[in-house]
């Protein structure tokens, strides 16, 4: 049946929207606030065992011998597994790029510190860790491959001998006549940048409880998993099981941000369960394991960037060369972060041509994982610094330089050189609002005074695109096949008119269960509390990907409203039959079906549902009698990527402008953020408080990435950042108060005009903070080209500039 999902808030069948787009209390909160929500580690199953993993202390070594007999014999130990079990009972994992995945336990060699080598299932975690110490293992350490540039040399030893190279990917993408643009440009700016590893760090580490049923050969996995269906298919592939024999139950999780990881050790726990004759095995990753060996590290990048600018200060070309150190394998899909920039390669600017020279390199470090924003945060960091380098060199105010180059508001939908299409936007309005909110003119006056007094005061203006509603085709260049990311919801109305919505994803923090309730309640004209959201396991759920790529708000809205529309259609036919008229004469509004103008011809949703369920004898013969419907929403118009990776991928393009003022203490290199203003446009804001929360959270993560968070390896590929004493998550005291405002340019393509916004400000914040730092350092001729801009680095840059050690601003002359 053809249905039409409302394209804006007015399309909802209600005279007074009480919930969608308004401030409501979250349904999830009472259980969370009272400690009642059941997270993975809260679950105790009968006969459950606990897992501990023995991990390689070397980044690269051969395993000479491995003897687990002493560990197996310890009281309380029920099973021990090694690489032999993994090869007997499982296949190598999938990866991106393809072919860079391995078994969950090492075989003859280890390739990164922390790589699982063996594992124990015992009565308690403590006992399992004790048993690890009884495992006898001998390694022959080898020289580790640490530096990606060295790794690319033909004479370099190989991370994976079978691959014959350390280059996982080496391609140049050219979109338009880039050479011509650069040849013709009167100004060409060149700079190199370094972005160090940072990562998700949800407060809950990864965990899974795995049960292998030896009788039915079925696998049940409970876990704090972001995308349950995807995870389940992955386990089925690894264990050679039919897809309907793997059931994944995703538990509410303590944040995710893309970096939950966990596939290897889930598979280890599955092997243990199999070896323990089907007893459930619980695997909880502790924080040290997360930091050194989990889904914790992303974006290990070396950039060389060129910007071509014409005589009218218009940017005419962008070249980005990226060497991305992905670590020892592609299993965590960190490579997709190198592909996502295609969705917004040229940012909010009308840059006509661009090129991407992309090298993904294997080294003996932890395999790189996704992290919120995927690739764009570092990509926009470099693009925005280049915009500032150009503006500074041409003596143009950086805000005005951006304004000149923005995609104009009448140009949407706008296709960028790398192929994606931006749906809508009014970038100038966002810029104007941000400059006003920040009192930009006042900040510049303050800067003049501060500089006269010799203080390092800087102002940064940055703008980025925050792509929303991802599709797999965005990652085609790193080997991910296919197009289409469906999200389904089943709406059911019971005999008393109470509504249940069955979904396929677990709670993660973005308030999606509240959103589902808001939609259903406003649609059917009932109270929020009359809606129950029911998460289903993967064998029962409608098609679902769950959260990711800033998609779920839009996708679940489409799914829920689509299902509601289907029910409305059915009920309209029922009511028409009961009122002996044609369906076209029935109107549904404010929870009631009726014939306009006919007194008494009105039925509530509850009455219709009750009739359908109790009096099937009264229904039209060909109708599906249940007041229930499933709708699966998939973004329309996504295209197959061409040979240069161009495709319509991410459906929506939110945009923001951040204005940041900082002062740097030249004695200590410490950066203080004095003012932080952000104006964002993510289309219709379905739950404004939730959107604000996502913004505030992503700004904090962006500040963490810009100034505090870093995974450091020594020259022997040993991780040095092993605890929260060294990986510095910002606390309340590191985050400034935000000045905030919003612009609303609805999307023409999505349900209710909303745009994906979950990843939010992390796209823009590191760029904005570094722009401000560079502005502060400019009078000294010092430049910040590395992230995080720690006090030590900032102080070094100041010293280098003082010594005259920094080469002049990166402009090449071009005739």
């Amino acid at each position, binding site marked *: 049946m053809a249905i039409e999902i409302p394209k804006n808030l007015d399309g909802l069948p209600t005279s007074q929207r009480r919930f969608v787009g308004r401030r409501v209390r979250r349904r999830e909160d*009472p259980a969370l606030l*009272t400690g009642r929500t059941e997270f993975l*580690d809260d679950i105790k199953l009968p006969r459950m065992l606990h897992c501990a993993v023995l991990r390689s202390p070397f980044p690269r070594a051969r395993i000479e011998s491995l003897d687990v007999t002493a560990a197996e014999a310890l009281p309380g130990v029920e099973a021990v597994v090694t690489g032999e079990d993994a090869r007997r009972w499982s296949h190598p994992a999938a990866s991106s790029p393809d072919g860079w995945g391995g078994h969950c336990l090492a075989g003859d060699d280890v390739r990164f510190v922390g790589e699982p080598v063996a594992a124990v299932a015992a009565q308690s975690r403590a006992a399992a860790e004790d048993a690890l110490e009884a495992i006898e293992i001998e390694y022959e350490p080898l020289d580790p491959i640490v530096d990606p540039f060295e790794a690319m040399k033909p004479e370099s030893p190989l991370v994976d001998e079978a691959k014959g190279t350390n280059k996982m990917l080496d391609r140049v993408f050219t979109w338009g006549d880039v050479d011509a643009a650069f040849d013709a440009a009167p100004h060409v700016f060149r700079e190199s940048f370094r972005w160090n590893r940072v990562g998700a760090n*949800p407060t*809950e580490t990864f965990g899974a409880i795995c049960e292998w049923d030896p009788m039915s050969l079925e696998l049940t996995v409970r876990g704090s998993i972001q995308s349950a269906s995807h995870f389940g298919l992955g386990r089925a592939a690894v264990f050679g099981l039919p897809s309907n024999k793997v059931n994944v139950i995703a538990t509410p999780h*303590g944040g995710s941000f893309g970096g939950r990881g966990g596939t290897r050790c889930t598979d280890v726990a599955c092997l243990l369960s199999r070896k323990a004759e089907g007893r459930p095995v619980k695997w909880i990753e502790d*924080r040290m394991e997360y930091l050194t060996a989990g889904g914790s590290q992303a974006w290990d990048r070396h950039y060389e960037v060129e910007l071509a600018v014409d005589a009218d200060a218009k940017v005419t070309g962008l070249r980005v060369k990226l060497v991305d150190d992905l670590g020892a394998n592609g299993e965590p899909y960190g490579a997709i972060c190198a592909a996502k920039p295609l969705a917004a390669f040229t940012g909010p600017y009308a840059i006509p041509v661009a090129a991407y020279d992309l090298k993904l390199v294997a080294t003996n470090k932890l395999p790189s994982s996704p992290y919120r924003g995927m690739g764009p945060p570092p990509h926009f960091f470099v693009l925005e610094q280049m915009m500032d380098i150009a503006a500074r060199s041409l003596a143009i105010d950086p805000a005005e330089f951006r304004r000149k180059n923005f995609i104009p508001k009448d140009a949407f939908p706008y296709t960028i050189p790398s192929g994606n299409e931006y749906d809508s936007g009014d970038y100038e309005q966002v810029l104007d609002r941000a400059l006003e909110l920040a009192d930009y003119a006042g900040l510049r006056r303050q800067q003049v005074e501060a500089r006269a007094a010799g203080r390092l005061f800087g102002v940064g203006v940055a703008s980025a695109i925050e792509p929303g509603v991802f599709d797999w085709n965005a990652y085609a260049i790193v080997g991910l096949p296919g197009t289409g990311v469906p999200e389904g919801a089943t709406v059911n109305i019971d005999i008393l008119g109470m509504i249940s919505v069955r979904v396929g994803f677990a709670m993660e923090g973005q308030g999606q269960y509240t959103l589902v309730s808001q939609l259903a309640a406003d649609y059917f004209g009932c109270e929020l509390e009359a809606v129950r959201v029911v998460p289903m396991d993967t064998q029962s759920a409608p098609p679902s990907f769950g959260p990711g790529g800033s998609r779920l708000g839009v996708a679940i809205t489409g799914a829920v409203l689509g299902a509601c529309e289907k029910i409305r259609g059915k009920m309209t036919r029922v009511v028409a039959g009961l009122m002996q008229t044609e369906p076209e004469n029935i109107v549904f509004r404010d929870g009631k079906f009726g014939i306009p103008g006919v007194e008494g011809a009105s039925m509530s949703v509850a009455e219709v549902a009750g009739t359908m369920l109790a009096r099937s004898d009264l229904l039209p013969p060909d109708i599906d009698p249940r007041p229930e419907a499933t709708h699966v929403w998939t973004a329309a118009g996504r295209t197959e990527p061409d040979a240069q990776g161009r495709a319509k991928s991410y459906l929506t393009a939110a945009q923001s402008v951040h204005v940041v003022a900082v002062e740097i203490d030249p004695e200590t290199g410490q950066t203080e953020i004095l003012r932080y203003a952000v104006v964002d446009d993510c289309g219709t804001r379905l739950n404004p408080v939730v959107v604000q929360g996502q913004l505030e959270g992503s700004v904090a993560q962006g500040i963490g990435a810009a100034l505090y968070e870093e995974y450091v390896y020594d020259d022997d590929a040993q991780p040095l950042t092993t605890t929260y004493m060294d990986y510095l998550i910002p606390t309340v005291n590191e*985050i400034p108060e935000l000045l905030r405002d919003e612009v609303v340019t609805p999307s023409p393509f999505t349900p209710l005009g909303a745009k994906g916004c979950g990843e939010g400000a992390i796209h823009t914040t590191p760029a904005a903070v570094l722009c401000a730092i560079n502005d502060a350092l400019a009078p000294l001729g010092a430049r910040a080209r590395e992230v995080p801009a720690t006090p030590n680095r900032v102080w070094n840059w100041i010293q280098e500039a003082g010594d005259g050690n920094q080469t002049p601003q990166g402009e090449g002359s071009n005739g």
Partner: protein
Amino acid sequence: MSPTRIPVRLRVNGRPAEGLAEPRTSLVDFLRDELDLTGTHVGCEHGVCGLCTVRVDGVAVRGCLMLAVQADGAEILTVEGLASPDGKLHPLQEAFAEEHGLQCGFCTPGFLMALHELIDDEPNPSEEQIRDVLGGQLCRCTGYAGILRAVQSAFAKLGASPSTESGA
């Protein structure tokens, strides 16, 4: 030889409780595994993140840095003891709900218990005192803005008369 387990007798949320613990068992693991009070969470086990914060004999402590056996005879308050038995939320919990002070909620019990102590200690805490306490608790979702709003709202509601009772 199975590990020696020592009886630990204490009071939790106003009621007597007891269980067995190895000497090495942390207080938070004891609360979660032995007493089935899983509202308190574990985030790092090195004392930095604050998720495991509970009140022991009135003071807020890291549950991961105390041994269960050290809590023998102590009076413990956990997040499960904040709301009243009939489900009425403590003003702190109310404020967090009202001001969107939580997203995934995993860090929230730790914040609530640390703030619960602050309310009892300092009816009118200074900004510095609030930030000193909050600075010892990590949140990855909210960016702290909602938490600060919740704290301001809670203290405003509680005024100059701090609540010294838990809901239990």
